[in-house]
């Protein structure tokens, strides 16, 4: 995690901004490319480039981990009633528990720092991916899965060729939610030394520096908007395709 952050920090910010803008443009259209460029330039101008990168890495890695765990779990929950009955209350619990609580068990395992923060973020942010994956699969029209059966699909063929592609827009909405939740954990994760924009906010609170706090808060909001719009647009494109 540190390595990745370090590498990004070593690269020239303007180059990274250009790359990010082009990626957003290719994936989600020129408007969002422009939005990404403007947003990131603004953050750079605020002097929050380095903490932003740390936050971004935390969010992206947490989301990846959440999807890696959440997607299979969601699939299992959709296909087996028993798994669904088992996971559903767990998900409720994970989402309603104050997110601070996840920091506590993480510390003895991973110590203070980014890894613990990542763990807590994954626990907090994974539920929407699990839930919406399961929902998406359960909502695939019955006649379509029936057609798959009629042509003699195995369970795996049905999943890969029929259910997942049909559920993809819903799954993407879940992943989008997960990203947003991960971002909302940033400030809290800073309590155990995760660094990034969260730490900026945290220090500002301790020193009662309103201006600095606002800047960091706005930076988080800008990052949130960029991530949200880009992933949403990607989901919409997938649906249309």
């Amino acid at each position, binding site marked *: 995690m540190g390595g990745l952050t370090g590498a990004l920090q070593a690269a020239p910010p303007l180059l990274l901004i250009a790359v990010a803008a082009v990626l957003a443009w290719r994936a989600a259209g020129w408007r969002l490319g422009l939005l990404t460029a403007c947003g990131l330039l603004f953050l750079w101008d605020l002097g929050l480039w380095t903490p932003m990168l740390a936050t971004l890495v935390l969010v992206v890695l947490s989301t990846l981990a959440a999807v890696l765990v959440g997607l299979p779990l969601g699939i299992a929950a959709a296909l087996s009633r028993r798994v669904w009955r088992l996971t559903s209350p767990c998900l409720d619990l994970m989402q309603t528990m104050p997110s601070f609580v996840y920091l506590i068990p993480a510390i003895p395992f991973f110590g203070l720092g980014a890894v613990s923060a990542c763990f807590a973020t994954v626990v907090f942010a994974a539920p929407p991916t699990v839930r919406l994956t399961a929902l998406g699969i359960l909502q695939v*029209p019955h*006649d*379509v899965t*029936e*057609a798959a*059966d*009629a*042509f*003699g*699909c*195995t369970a795996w*063929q049905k999943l890969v*060729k*029929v259910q997942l*592609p*049909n559920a*993809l827009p819903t799954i993407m909405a879940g992943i989008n939610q997960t990203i947003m939740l991960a971002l909302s954990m940033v400030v809290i994760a800073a309590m155990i030394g995760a660094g990034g924009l969260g730490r900026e906010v945290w220090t500002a609170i301790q020193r009662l520096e309103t201006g600095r706090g606002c800047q960091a808060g706005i930076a988080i909001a800008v990052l949130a908007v960029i991530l949200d719009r880009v992933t949403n647009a990607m989901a919409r494109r997938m649906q249309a*395709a």
Partner: protein
Amino acid sequence: MILAEGLRCVFGAREREALSMLRAGESRTAIMERTGTVVALDDVGLRVDEGELLVVMGLSGSGKSTLLRCLNRLVTPSSGSIRVAGQDVMAMGSRELRRFRRRTFGMVFQHFALLAHRTVLQNVEFGLEIQGVARRERRRAAEQALDLVGLAGWEDKRPGQLSGGMKQRAGLARALAADASILLMDEAFGALDPLIRHDMQAELVALQRRLRKTIVFVSHDLDEAVALGGRIALMMDGAIVQDGTAESILAAPATPYVKRFVAHIDVSSVLRVATLADRSATPPRGSWPVLQGDMTLREALPLLAEGPDGLAVQDEAGRTIGVLSRRAALAALARQPLKEEPAWPSLSPASRSPSYATASSIG
């Protein structure tokens, strides 16, 4: 060959209870009231020979779709036996059933059931893809099937971009491409406009003649059933009330329900010349056109309109079996019994052909 016996199928939580009530002879409504369970099929038997086309007819909710789904066990009946091509379908495990469905059944769905994320071509390829057929080969088969249903040029569109009738044809192409020996078709032409519908019916009949497919075709359009020309099984409230050719059902409806069902049928395309022919009359002399016994009345009408009153009727072997008069044809069209004609003394009651009796029972 498909042979189903004693199929019972109930939907609902209290299946056992409903079944035992059913065996005790309770009515569907009583079972519905007591247990909240729907009886979709009640002791249905069915036999479709190889290469035969059976049309399953009945009002909405009479259990046609359920019966069709039982045949490839998309729905497992609560009791009964199903044998297809000599194999016991009820006894199959899931693996065996899968293999069996791939090889044996092509299915067209009432609501199309196309895959929205795939192109039309990819949809049509689906069955072959599942069977593991190589890409190039399945593409060729899919293009052929699309050609057959008149969707050539639409390969790269998505189902969402097609009209209802086109979706239906895409669904049909998907079933045809899979090259199964039995086609299960659930209201496969329901969304087509009359012209294309007519073409597709003719196409299906030709296809069936050519490829000797066994077809079970669900429809609630009697004229469609007649056009397809197969045997008809009429369903009501989850049971088959009558089973036979259109002509035999028209001649002797088993229940008032069947009678009402066939009341508005186009008789001219159902009745055959042979059944209407007067077997005791002598054919006119001279070189007039001759009617074939298996012609429908509709086909015979233009010939009857010309020439003298009364044309000779031949059987397949070319032997003259009787005479069809204009009066008999008109009476059949009017669904009236042919009255005795005093000026025609040769027609004694004893020599009235059985066809008059059939015509008189149409009512």
